[in-house]
C-alpha cells in the first residue's frame, strides 16, 4: 500500500512538473493564453513601401515585392502587377520586367505571353512587413558559407 501511494504521489508530482514545463514552453510563442483559447492577435504592421529592391537570399529566390500591393486585383479578368511589370509596360512604368522564365511552359517551350502557371504573381512574390520574428532565424546565405566568414565558424 505504501508503495502504491508513493507511486501515486510521484505520478502526481511528475504531472504537475510536466504541466509547468509545458506551460512555460508554450508561453514562449503563444503567450499566457490557455491552449483551448485564442489569444489576442498581434498588431498588424504596415506594408513595406520603399520601392527599394531587396537582395535575394539565394539566386533562385523569387524576388520579394518592395511596395504595397493593397487592393491589386489578380484574377482571370485582370492582373494589376502586369500593368507595370509586363514587357510592353516597362517603358512607361520603369519597373523591372518579369523574368523571361515566366514566358515558358513546363516543358521549356517558350510562349508569346506569360505562361498561365506563372500568372498568379503572389503565389511566389510577396510584399513585406516589418515584424519581429517569434523564432530566431539563423539562415546563412551561400556567399557567407563559401567565405567561411560566419561568426563562430572555422575558416
Amino acid at each position, binding site marked *: 500500500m505504501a508503495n502504491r501511494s508513493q507511486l501515486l504521489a510521484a505520478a502526481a508530482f511528475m504531472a504537475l512538473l510536466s504541466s509547468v514545463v509545458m506551460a512555460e514552453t508554450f508561453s514562449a510563442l503563444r503567450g499566457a493564453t490557455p491552449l483551448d483559447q485564442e489569444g489576442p492577435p498581434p498588431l498588424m504592421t504596415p506594408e513595406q*513601401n*520603399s*520601392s527599394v529592391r531587396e537582395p535575394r537570399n539565394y539566386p533562385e529566390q523569387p524576388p520579394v515585392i518592395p*511596395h*504595397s500591393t*493593397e*487592393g491589386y*486585383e489578380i*484574377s*482571370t*479578368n*485582370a*492582373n*494589376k502587377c*502586369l*500593368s507595370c511589370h*509586363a514587357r*510592353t*509596360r516597362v517603358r*512607361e512604368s*520603369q519597373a523591372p520586367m518579369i523574368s523571361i522564365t515566366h514566358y515558358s511552359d513546363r516543358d521549356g517551350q517558350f510562349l508569346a*505571353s*506569360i505562361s498561365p502557371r506563372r500568372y498568379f504573381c503572389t503565389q511566389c512574390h510577396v510584399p513585406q512587413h516589418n515584424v519581429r520574428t517569434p523564432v530566431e532565424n539563423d539562415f546563412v546565405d551561400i556567399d557567407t558559407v563559401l567565405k567561411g566568414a560566419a561568426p563562430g565558424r572555422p575558416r
Partner: protein
Amino acid sequence: MTTTDVSRPSFWRRVLSFAREVWGVLIRSSSVFSLAFLVLAGFVAGIIFWGAFNTALELTNTETFCISCHEMRSNVFEELKTTVHYNNRSGVRAHCPDCHVPHEWTHKIARKMQASKEVWGKLFGTINTREKFLDHRLELAIHEWARMKANDSLECRNCHSAQSMDITRQSPRAVEAHQRFLFTGQKTCIDCHKGIAHHLPDMRNVPGWQ
C-alpha cells in the same frame, strides 16, 4: 344593350368632350380670381413643384436608393465594401453618387437623363442575374471610364485635388507616377486607377493592361 348604346355616347367620345370642356376653361380669362391671386398662386405652386422635383432628385441621388435594387446591392456594392473607398482607418467614405453622379447641377441633370436608360435596363432585367451582370460588366465599365476620361476625372477630383496632394507623404512610386503623368496633365486619374472601387471586367484589350 341596345338602349345604352343609343342613350350614351361611347367612352372615347365622352373623354374627348370632357377634354374640350377643360381646354375651354383653360383658355378663357378668369372672371373670378384677380390677377394678383393668380400670379401668387402660380408662384406658390411653382415653389412646391420645384421643391418636389429637387427632393425627388436628391432622393434618387443616395446610396440607399442605388442599393434598393439587387443588381447594385449584390454586385457592385458588395465589391465596394472591400475597398479603401468604403473601409479605411479614418472612416471617411465615398457613396455611390459621389463618384457616379456629377455634383454640379446642369451636369447632374444631364447624367440623370442618361440614367433613364438604366431604368429601362431595370424594367427589362438586362442585368438581373449575376451571369448577365458579368456579361455586361465590360460594356458598363467602358461607359464609366469614357465619362471620367471626358470630364478629366472630375468626380475623383471633388475629393482628391492635385493642389492639396502632398507628394512628400506619398510612396516613392506614387511620387514618380504623379509627377510624370498627373501634374504634367499627360494622364487623368482614371487612366491608371481603374478598378479601385469595383472588380475589373476582362481587361485584355484595355490600354495599359495585358
